[in-house]
C-alpha cells in the first residue's frame, strides 16, 4: 500500500473542494499518514468470499402513496441562503470566461 504524500493530500483536498494553505498541508498531511498507517491492517483481513455490508439492518425500498404533502414555502427554503435575489438563490458565476 503506498504512503500518502503531501501532494496527494493537496490533490484530495482539491477533489473535496477545500482550499488548504501550505501551513495546513504541513499540519494535516503527516497526521493523515499516521491515521492511514493505523488502519492499513484492514486490507488483508477479510477473504474474498465475505459479502460486504453497507447497512446494519436489511433494507427494502420504502414507498408512500403518491399524494401531495405540505413542504417548505419558498421563503422558508430561502431563509438560510447566503444571498437571495428575485426569490431565488443568488450564486457566483458557474462558467469561466472562455
Amino acid at each position, binding site marked *: 500500500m503506498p504512503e500518502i504524500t503531501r501532494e496527494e493530500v493537496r490533490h484530495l483536498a482539491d477533489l*473535496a473542494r477545500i482550499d488548504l494553505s501550505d501551513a495546513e498541508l504541513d499540519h494535516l498531511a503527516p497526521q493523515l499518514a499516521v491515521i492511514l498507517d*493505523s488502519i492499513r491492517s484492514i486490507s488483508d483481513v477479510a477473504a474474498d468470499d465475505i459479502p460486504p455490508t453497507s447497512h446494519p439492518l436489511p433494507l427494502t425500498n420504502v414507498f408512500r402513496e403518491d399524494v401531495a404533502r405540505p413542504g417548505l414555502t419558498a421563503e422558508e*427554503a430561502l431563509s438560510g441562503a447566503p444571498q437571495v435575489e428575485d426569490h431565488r438563490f443568488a450564486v457566483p458565476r458557474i462558467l469561466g470566461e472562455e
Partner: protein
Amino acid sequence: MSDLVRRTAADLADALAAGETTSVELTEAHLDRIAAVDGDVHAFLHVDREGALEQARASDERRAAGRPAGPLDGVPVAVKDVLATKGLPTTCGSKILEGWVPPYDATLVTRLREAGLPILGKTNMDEFAMGSSTEHSAYGPTHNPWDLDRIPGGSGGGSAAAVAAFEAPLAIGTDTGGSIRQPGAVTGTVGVKPTYGGVSRYGLVALANSLDQAGPVTRTVLDAALLHEVIGGHDPLDSTSVDQPVPPVVEAARQGAAGDMKGVRIGVVKELTGEGYQHGVQARFDESVQLLVDAGAEVVEVSCPSFVHALAAYYLILPSEASSNLAKFDAMRYGLRVYPEGVEDPSAEEVMRATRDAGFGDEVKRRIILGTYALSSGYYDAYYGQAQKVRTLIGRDFASAFESADVLVSPTAPTTAFKLGEKLDDPVAMYLNDIATIPANLAGVPGLSVPSGLADEDALPTGFQVLAPALADDRLYRVGAALEAALLDRWGGPLLDKAPALAEKETVR
C-alpha cells in the same frame, strides 16, 4: 441551587402529576442553574429561555385542564445541536452553520414538543459529531463537571455535561461510534444508543447515515427509558426507520430495578477487556459483573475476534460517508459563504473551496480527505470494500455471541476523562476512546452505558456498557437498571453526589 434540579425526571414527572410543582417552576430552576454554572461548563451553545418558559406555561395549562400530553409533559430537555429545531439556531458545532435557523423540526424534536417537554436549548458537540472530547467544537470545548480541566467525552459532551451538572434532567444525544455512551461513561451519567433505526434520523444532520442513531442522555436508567419511549418508533419520513413498536423499555427498567437477574446470561467480551483498559476502569467493571452475578445472572466469556478490526473499519466507513454527506456545504443554499481573497469575480467553485476551508475545522478536514481517499478509484477495494467486509464479520461475531449470551458487557471507554488538549493533535489516540463502543454502530445493535463507579487512581467516573441484539433494547434497560440499583445500594446514593460542587455565579433576573 434549587433542590428541584437534582431530582430525576421520573421524580419530577410524579411531582408534576401530584401538583407539587409546575413546569414553569422547574423550567425556571434549570434555566437559573444554566445561568449560574454554564459559564464554566459550557454545555450549551444556545439557551432558549423565552421559548422554554412558553412551552412550560402551555404544559401547566394542559395539566390544569387534566389533559397532560404524556408522563414527561412539563419536564424540560436539552437537545444536541446536530438536530434541526425550527426557529432555534442549529450549528452542529461548526462555523459553516453559524447562525443557521432551520425552517423545520427533526421528527425527534417534533415528538419532544408533542409530548410537552420544554426545550431548554442546544448543547455543544464536536463539529459535525466528529470527535470524542467536544474539543473539535468551533465554539470552544465543554468542560467535565467532575473536573473542569478535563474533557466531557464526545461528540455529545454538551448533553452529558448538561445532565451531570444538573442543568437539565434529560438530554438528547446522537451516537455514531460512541458519542452518547462514551460521554456518559466519563461524566458519570447514563446514555443509550437504541437499535439502528429505532429513533428517526429525519432532521438529524447526517455524519454517517449507516451508523448514526439518536438516543437519551440522562442520570438514571429509568429516565432514559422514559425518554426513549417519547422519541422512539417508526417515522415514514426516514426510510431506514424500523417499522415496529418501541420495545417495552420502561417496563424493563422497572423490572431490572427490582434486582432479580435469574436466568439472564451475561457475556463478557474477551476482546474488550484487559490490555489497554485503565486499571480503575477494569476494576469497576469486574466488580459490576460480580454484582450482576450476585443478583442471579450467569456469566460466560465470549470471543468476538473481528472486533480488533472494528476501529479500522469504522475509520474508513465513517469518513467515506461523511465526505459525501458534507458535500452539501457548498456555500450556495444555506450556511457560510466566504469569497477567496484577491480573486476578482470568483467562480462558484472557488467560493466553495474558500468557504469550506474557512468553515470546517481540522478534524472535519482530516475526515473529508480520508473519505475522499478511501473512495477514490484504485483504493476503493483495498479500503472501503474491505471495511464493508469487516462489517459483515463483526455482525457475525455478534450473532454468534448472542447465541450464548442474552447481553454482552464491557467497559464503555478504556480510560477515564483525560485533560483538555492532551490528545487534540493526536487523532489516532483520540480515536482509541471509541474502541469498545464502535462495534455496536457497525452492527446496528443497541448499547447502554451506566456509571460503574470512580477509578481509584484519579477518582473520576467509569462506565459499564451493555449491548443487546437488534430490537432487544429492553434487555439493556433490564440489566442496566439492575446494576444501577445494586451500585446505588453500595454507594448509599447516586454517583453524582460525589462530584465536586460547581461554583455558582450570582444571577439577577
